[in-house]
């Protein structure tokens, strides 16, 4: 009796294992099919970037032969000044956003002062205001401020809006830091600024990194605002420049256009390779709720 029961138990386990294995295979297959489809545009981009016009018109789907590396030469020569612009502007804006977020987050998390709640509500309320509402006034205001067609027209509005999100994240994270730590530092004669720089910031590195990565991607991706705020091609950033080159008839050379697309993708690709864990964990950890 007992023997058969054991055998039955093993059999059930085997059955379950088999079923589990089948299930795992099915979900892997589905996942891979979706992955493949999601990457189709990227495959097309890479394929086109290595082909000449004749090869594209001849047979769209075959692999490039010979491989047209010269497309990249053409694209990079055209786009490198704008790429440098983009990297400079995005870097400055991100660094400033990080500083403002850390400072603002610290002030609202750890300092006490009259009017704190009112000021915090003023910032929180901005989360409800969509960018499109302020587009028209801001376009006119940057001319009044005399920063139209300069990089400040990108950087200042970016960090002004970007810090709101950063301050909220940093405040939540810094509030969880033990207050005693700061109290004892203060008793030891540590200034608030010092406490911020040498205690609060090091302890909030992960959340700051999340802010940096997310904002960097945001700024790099921005298209409509630079299109409006920057008029000269020399100062323009890469996303808009790609569009300008594409619509100015350079679209006739599809290969080098696609090579330009690849070129524009590289910085974010590199950033993502190094920070993917931060980005993904920042979003999954639930810091971004409600």
């Amino acid at each position: 009796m007992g023997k058969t029961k054991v055998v039955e138990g093993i059999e059930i386990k085997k059955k379950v294992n088999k079923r589990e294995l089948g299930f795992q295979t099915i979900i892997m297959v589905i996942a891979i099919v979706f992955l493949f489809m999601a990457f189709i545009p990227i495959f097309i981009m890479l394929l086109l970037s290595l082909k000449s016009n004749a090869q594209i018109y001849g047979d769209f789907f075959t692999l490039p032969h010979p491989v047209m590396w010269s497309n990249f030469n053409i694209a990079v020569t055209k786009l490198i000044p704008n790429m440098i612009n983009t990297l400079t502007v995005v870097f400055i804006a991100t660094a400033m956003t990080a500083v403002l977020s850390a400072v603002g987050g610290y002030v609202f998390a750890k300092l006490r002062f009259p009017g704190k709640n009112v000021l915090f509500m003023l910032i929180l309320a901005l989360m409800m205001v969509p960018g499109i509402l302020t587009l028209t006034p801001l376009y006119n205001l940057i001319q009044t401020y005399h920063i139209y067609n300069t990089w400040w027209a990108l950087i200042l509005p970016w960090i002004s809006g970007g810090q709101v999100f950063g301050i909220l994240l940093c405040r939540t994270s810094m509030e969880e830091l033990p207050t005693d730590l700061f109290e004892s530092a203060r008793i030891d004669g540590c200034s608030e600024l010092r406490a911020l720089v040498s205690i609060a910031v090091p302890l909030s590195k992960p959340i700051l990194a999340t802010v940096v990565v997310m904002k960097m991607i945001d700024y790099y991706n921005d298209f409509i605002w630079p299109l409006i705020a920057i008029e000269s091609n020399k100062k323009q950033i890469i996303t808009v420049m790609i569009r300008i080159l594409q619509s100015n008839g350079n679209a006739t050379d599809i290969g080098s256009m696609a090579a330009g697309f690849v070129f524009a993708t590289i910085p974010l690709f590199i950033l993502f390779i190094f920070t993917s864990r931060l980005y993904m964990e920042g979003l999954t950890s639930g810091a971004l709720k409600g």
Partner: protein
Amino acid sequence: MRRQKLWIVLCVLFCLIFGVSFYLNSVLNQSSKLFSDTGYKTGVKNNTMAYDENRDIFFVGTYDNKLIAFSGETKEKLWEMDGKGVFRKLIVHSEDNMLYAGSDDNHVYFVNIETGEVVSDINVQRRIYDIDVTADGSEVVISAGVSTAKHNILVYSSDGEQLHNNKYTFQVKCVCYTADGSNLITANNRGEIIRMETDGTEVKKVRMDYEVLMMVPYGTQGEYLAMGSDGSYMVVDDDLNIIRTGTPDMMSGSVALSIGGDQDGEHILIGTKQGTVYIIDNSGRIIYTADMGTSVSGFLPMGDEVYITGYGDFVMSLDIADLDLMASLSGYSTLIYFLTVFSPIVVILSLIMAIPRTNRLAKRFGKMVYRYRTAYILLIPTFGLLIFFNYVPIVMAFTRAFTNWSKFNYAAADIEFVGFDNFKMMFTEGYFLTGLENLLKIVVTGFLKVLTVPLLIAWLVYSVKGDRTKYILRFLFVLPIVVPSVVSALLWMQIYDPNIGALNQLLGKLGLESWQRVWLGNEKTAIWAIIFMGFPFVNALAFLLYYGGFTSIDAELYEAARMDGAKRFDIFKKIQFPLILPQLRLILTLTFIGVVQDFNGVYLLTQGGPGTSTYVPGLELYFNATTFGRYGYACALGVVMFLFIMVATLIGRRASAAKN
């Protein structure tokens, strides 16, 4: 008491500073004053100009085949002559009472300045681009051609006898005599400026980077000003020594059309097809940009002024002295603006300090602020930015939405309150309603997109065994976010291309030629093509949020469910799905906020077309805020979209609050 006096002095001082800076600021903003209408009205499209100083007669060669003379005093028409083509170039020889006019109808007309009578003409049987006449009127040189590969530089004597005929296989659009009339200076579409003898023998040559479109005499030293098709310019003297060159940093998409200078050779003006005039000083800096509305085709230096005309019925004059004042002021424009904004604040503060009672209050307030100074000082940059780039624009959006604020009613004095007119216009103009219909489609499909694929993928990745596999899958599913959204949209544009797009190619390969479409060019398919963009819709943000939701579910719940023999689907339905509802609500809210505002895809792929079939409210706002310059209306659209988003957010909040 003494202190109080000091405050009063400060108050008065800054009142004065405010007055001066406010005045200077308004001078700077009244840029339209620089240009004034000269009063010469042809009634047709103009092209080129000339002026006889001795008789005070002004000539306009028009695009509509007319040559018209005006009295400089009364601005009335003196006479009018009809040609059969566009008048390209006019040259006045006052002593001989002669006006030489080169026209597209192959003729150079010799016209009596006073009567408008054609004394004689030369027919070169080719289209004329440029002419010049020697100072003594004995020779005429003509640039003419029949095609881009057949061009001639012809030299005639004043009685119509052909002296030289130099043939070229490329275009030599510009020609003029050197100061002594012995040689020619020509410029061609290879970018070369050549000094040659009248028989075509080259003497000297310099190069520009692009085709030379126009060349005019410049300044008082007998120099020449040439313009390349990219808008670059070069000043050369009689011996082709390069005096200066430059490439102005023009607006993207501008096409240079004409060039000219002022009498003294201090400024260079470049006119574009788009109607912009760039004014460049002798250091090569653009000191002023003006919009003429129509293509600018000709400049004429007139003493302290420069006359400007183009393919429209206008002859404007630009005052160079005013321009210099403006240019010197604009260097301080930021300072002036700063003073205008901040001096009233100082005035108010010093006024408060000057009155004893408010002084006491202010001191108490100051003490409080001083006590908590660290916090306030640390928040100054944050709120400084927010005020200028968030709060002021928000207040402006809400107030200006009820005004007629536009490109044409820009100054504060012109802006009038119009009530709800802008909002009413949304329903009468049509674009907004079409846009709403499309937006509804995009929102509904957008919800479907984020409710299906990302949820499925998140569940799949969560159910996969092995942490490493999970991580790799997660990484790969999120990886496509590195493609900038512009690139991704342009890639989809490529995919939808009717001829070499991947989609039609694939359909062709599969033998489904009948399914091929001009996806973005067809009113029926365009909006769906835009919606389908991004297939298979693995939204990284939604995916990660769902995934985060799954991982935060307590593992014990599964154990309990499994003990009860629950199937996988039951677990999903009864445990997982209800527990990720907060994420779901957040994603729906975020999607709505994103979709309502977004018009990147539409802008890049179709610009709202074909017709108005892919218009969305965001795109309409963009066009009104930029191209159309109807700022008040754009603000009103922004307010309406803000209300949509606010209502949706509140519903989302309410729903999650009710649950909790």
